[in-house]
């Protein structure tokens, strides 16, 4: 049985540029659970992820979120990250000239500092990141390249998972990390995510495809539509969506 909730979202409403996007999201994620969120384009899945991460473009208009008992929405984005909230971006940004390993080391140290741990030294860090890169089947050349600079779509996604593995978050929200991956890369990414699974960690997969869920088996599947969760179920719901699409759920709601 899962332990206490890691994340509790209640009646969350948010808008962007004056347009209401999240219209009352309720979701509870227990420790050790893997949740999948599926839903049509533009329904607000990424918005939910960004609001949780603390992106200021999004205006929270109501509701609340607790993360390990803390008021998540009151925390600054970097505090959320240091507390163990990780967002795998749908579109990871390029930061030219900023060394990939350097950013990751700074990120790890920021997290360790908050936990009262000493900074990781360069050797230790190098050993750690090299091991994780090997696991993710990434060439070490990516270490010294600029953050996502000139990476292919699939390489960017792999880099996101690499960062997640190094930072070992309490809760990872992966926004379409499977999009744009070839089948081998998908397996590698799934392997990375699965390696992080454990009683203390929770994972939210935002995806359009059952394919990912063949490799990472979710405990719960939610259907997101028009800014809220319309239906929740177990992994069989994802299969049903795959064969029947979203219309039946949306129609069902109207009816």
């Amino acid at each position, binding site marked *: 049985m899962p332990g206490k909730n890691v994340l509790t979202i209640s009646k969350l409403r948010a808008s962007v540029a004056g347009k209401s996007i999240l219209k009352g999201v309720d979701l509870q994620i227990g420790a050790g659970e893997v949740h999948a969120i599926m839903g049509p384009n533009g329904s607000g899945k990424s918005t939910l992820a960004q609001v949780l*991460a*603390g*992106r*200021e*473009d999004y205006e929270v208009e109501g509701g609340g979120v607790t993360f390990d008992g803390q008021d998540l929405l009151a925390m*600054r*984005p*970097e505090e*959320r*990250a*240091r507390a163990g909230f*990780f*967002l795998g*971006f749908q579109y*990871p*940004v*390029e*930061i*030219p*000239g*900023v*060394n990939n390993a*350097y*950013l*990751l080391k*700074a*990120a790890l140290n*920021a*997290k360790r500092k*908050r936990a009262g741990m000493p900074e990781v030294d360069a050797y230790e860090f190098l050993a750690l990141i090299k091991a994780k890169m090997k696991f993710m089947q990434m060439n070490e050349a990516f270490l010294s390249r*600029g*953050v996502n600079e000139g990476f292919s779509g699939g390489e960017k996604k792999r880099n996101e998972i690499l*960062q997640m593995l190094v*930072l070992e978050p309490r809760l990872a929200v992966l926004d379409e990390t499977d999009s744009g991956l070839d089948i081998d890369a998908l397996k590698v990414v799934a392997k990375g995510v699965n390696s992080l699974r454990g009683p203390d960690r929770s994972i939210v997969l935002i995806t359009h495809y059952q394919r990912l869920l063949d490799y990472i088996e979710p405990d719960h599947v939610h259907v997101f539509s028009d800014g809220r969760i319309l239906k929740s179920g177990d992994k069989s719901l994802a299969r049903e969506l795959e064969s029947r699409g979203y219309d039946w759920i949306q129609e069902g709601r109207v009816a």
Partner: protein
Amino acid sequence: MSSKSQEIEAVLGQKYRHGFVTDIESDSLPPGLDESVVAAISRRKQEPQFLLDWRLKAFRHWRTMREPAWASVRYKPIDYQDISYYSAPRAPTDAPKSLDEVDPKLLATYEKLGIPLHERARLAGVAVDAVFDSVSVATTFKDKLAKAGVIFCSFSEAVRNHPELIERHLGTVVPIQDNFFAALNSAVFSDGSFVYVPPGVRCPMELSTYFRINAAKTGQFERTLIIAAEGASVSYLEGCTAPMRDENQLHAAVVELIALDDAQIKYSTVQNWYPGDENGVGGIYNFVTKRGECRGRNAKISWTQVETGSAITWKYPSCVLKGENSVGEFYSVAVANNFQQADTGTKMIHIGRNTKSTIVAKGISAGHATNTYRGLVKILPGADGARNFTQCDSLLMGSRCAAHTFPYMEVRNPGATVEHEASTSKIGEDQLFYCLQRGVSAEDAVNMIVSGFCKAVFKELPMEFAVEAQNLLSVSLEGAVG
């Protein structure tokens, strides 16, 4: 969106750290400028007749000139009669022979700046010719340099001890009539540095000078002359910082570099003069003429600069590529924050055959600042096979700053190759958010992004100077830079 910009600005809003005044009594001339002032400066410095004549010639020419108005900078008219043209720290004897003889207050000033002179000199093996206001007060490592035959001293000392070198070379790269500020400098220059590296000698250490403007209302007119003879090479570092004050201070330096056959001169600058406060009050006016001449074959002159300070910067380190196969380089990072105005760039004049030049200019604007790149690549008819590569990138932080790029090309040889690349980007809120989401603080994130942007220039700086440059950049843009 706007709240993010505010955050960036909050991070950038750090106050100038090097703002303090040392109250060493100054032995200054009263404000004003006429021939008698020019003569008085020359007399105080016990200069030979040729130099007095040269100064007077420059002064007479200057009076016929008008201040240039074409740079993209705006400032209140300067009253040249309201400036004192000479200021020297008062000392019991003429010049100290060792650090022990240096005014302890002066040394304390260096401490505050994070430049413990003696330590720095010993540990880093850097000879420091410290210019405080206008007169050199401490010079170290002379012996080691003397053994190699390198002359590194204050300009006044060179006038006394090597007048023939001065007479032969002074004004041959930047003639007195070159421009308004160069003419003014030629008339009233106070002191500066002189370097001569004899044929075949690699200067055994990096030469470094710290400039500091200290006496109130004293225009600073530094004069630097560096000569690398055949096959010689030298790396020269110039760094500066100034105390906080309300008065605008004029600074019009002239730097001349001469590289003969197979000689190399690398000139690196970190400039951190007081830029004025958040409202644009005060700050240094920095009108500098820097030019190097590759006189011989295979000569190379390389300018690297990190400009974070001054209210107004007007500065175009240039290379005249006369010798066949000679090479000119210009690597620049110019940061403008608050109400700073920077108009910088370079000129590459290709005269000789197969001459090559590279320009990498990075401009960073924040607050209400304006950053202008103005570059000229001129290829004369005789410069067969000349090549130039220019890259200008601008980074904007927030929405109230501006960047302009004026790359002028004048190609009069059809066989020449000229390439130009330019980009302007806003500091990505996406980039910033990405770093925040990984747990990195906003301050560190901004610095990381800026440092990444400047990488191509920083790697051209000598090692320990690169660290210093990043530190200075951090003062303007706060925090630790990767």
